[in-house]
């Protein structure tokens, strides 16, 4: 019977890792869902001419980009309990804390990418739109943002690829994502195979991410 044990073990391992993968994907998609729009708002705030808007946002970006994401995960999990006075203390579910930390962190990076993109659009585009009578909102959403999206796709894809791999960090809060599951399984069966398979999973995910961005770039290549 021993010859049938190998495929059974393989299926077991894959199933196990797959469950971890689902959690990793949840972190990945929820982070993108929140951080992409939040990053745009942050970029607009960062470019605001009101100092009481732009300065706090600069500080926020500095802190989020300047401290380890790992530390931020721990902070958002523990701070509501340990940093609030008694009576106001509460704790967030691990997963919620992880999504908040990831979204705020990635929004800071995305914000700077958006800002770079927005500031690279020639002022003539705004002027042409203004003379044609477009409102500021119309100008931003019809004229500026579509051109920004094309320009920022390559740096955004960098961040998204990093995000796939960064999801492994949520294990610090005891969340059973792909990497943690693989690591535990590795210790249990005294083999590096689970870690290697997890690596293949990450690579596969990023292959998909790369393909998605390639096709998006291609779709936007109809103009220069």
């Amino acid at each position: 019977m021993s010859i049938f044990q190998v495929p059974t073990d393989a299926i077991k391992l894959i199933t196990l890792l797959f469950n971890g993968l689902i959690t990793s994907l949840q972190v990945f998609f929820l982070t993108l869902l929140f951080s992409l729009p939040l990053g745009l708002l942050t970029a607009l705030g960062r470019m605001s001419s009101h100092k009481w808007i732009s300065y706090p946002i600069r500080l926020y970006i500095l802190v989020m980009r300047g401290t380890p994401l790992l530390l931020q995960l721990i902070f958002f999990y523990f701070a509501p309990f340990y940093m609030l006075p008694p009576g106001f203390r509460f704790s967030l579910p691990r997963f919620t804390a992880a999504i908040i930390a990831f979204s705020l962190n990635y929004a800071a990076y995305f914000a700077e990418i958006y800002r770079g993109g927005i500031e690279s659009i020639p002022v003539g585009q705004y002027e042409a739109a203004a003379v044609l009578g477009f409102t500021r909102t119309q100008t931003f959403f019809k004229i500026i943002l579509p051109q920004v999206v094309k320009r920022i796709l390559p740096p955004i894809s960098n961040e998204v690829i990093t995000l796939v791999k960064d999801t492994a960090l949520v294990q610090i809060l005891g969340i059973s994502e792909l990497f943690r599951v693989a690591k535990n399984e590795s210790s249990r069966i005294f083999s590096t195979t689970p870690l290697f398979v997890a690596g293949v999973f990450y690579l596969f995910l990023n292959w998909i991410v790369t393909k998605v961005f390639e096709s998006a770039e291609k779709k936007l290549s109809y103009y220069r």
Partner: protein
Amino acid sequence: MQILKVENLYKSFAGSGEVVIDVSFEINEGEVIAVIGPSGSGKSTLLRCLTLLERINHGTIKVAGETMVETTPEGRVVYASEEQLRKIRLRLGMVFQNFNLFPHFSVMRNITEAPIHVRGLSPEKAREEAERLLGKIGLADKADAYPYQLSGGQSQRVAIARALAMKPDILFFDEPTSALDPELTGEVLKVIRQLAAERMTMLVVTHEMAFARDVADRVIFMDKGQVVEEGTAEQIFGDPENERTRSFLRNFSANHK
């Protein structure tokens, strides 16, 4: 009917001082005005003030009788309400030196986007109008092209069509041929000549003296932010009164032989 009235307009920038100094003139319906003068004489800034791209420091601007901006006796510059300015803006068209076409829109959409979303025209109507304009500028076959596929001359003609599609009362041109290769200026000037023949009210900032001479009803010569001389094309080019005008035209023809 008077389309534009400018009185005692001043514009200065922090750092570069006064760029437009006490400029006054008017334009009547159907008139073509050429503004000439050396680089840095304030011509473009003047145009940017008239099209609300810059805010003035002093003076009055009226468009078709409506006050865009005026200055109180105490010297306070008061612009009309946003609502009012939006209406006034619809009367003004602008053609830029660098075209400023929207690169992500086809030629057709460059022309129809503002009529649809600003004037509220139906897409069918806007398309129809755009096709007519494209025919007029000789680019009927370029409706589906994107700006990067056009030559400079074609781009500028599309920019003119885009401005015309808003049915402005007056069209401003800011050195419309200065960014073009010499062999491409002709096709753009031809379109402007055609508009002049149709009595489109226009103010053209230009370095094309021969063109200004042919097309303009009146010529304004600016130097160092001031209007030095104003008159008919024959007067300014044939028998300029001011020494600065004379020396500018003399240098100009010497450099362009």
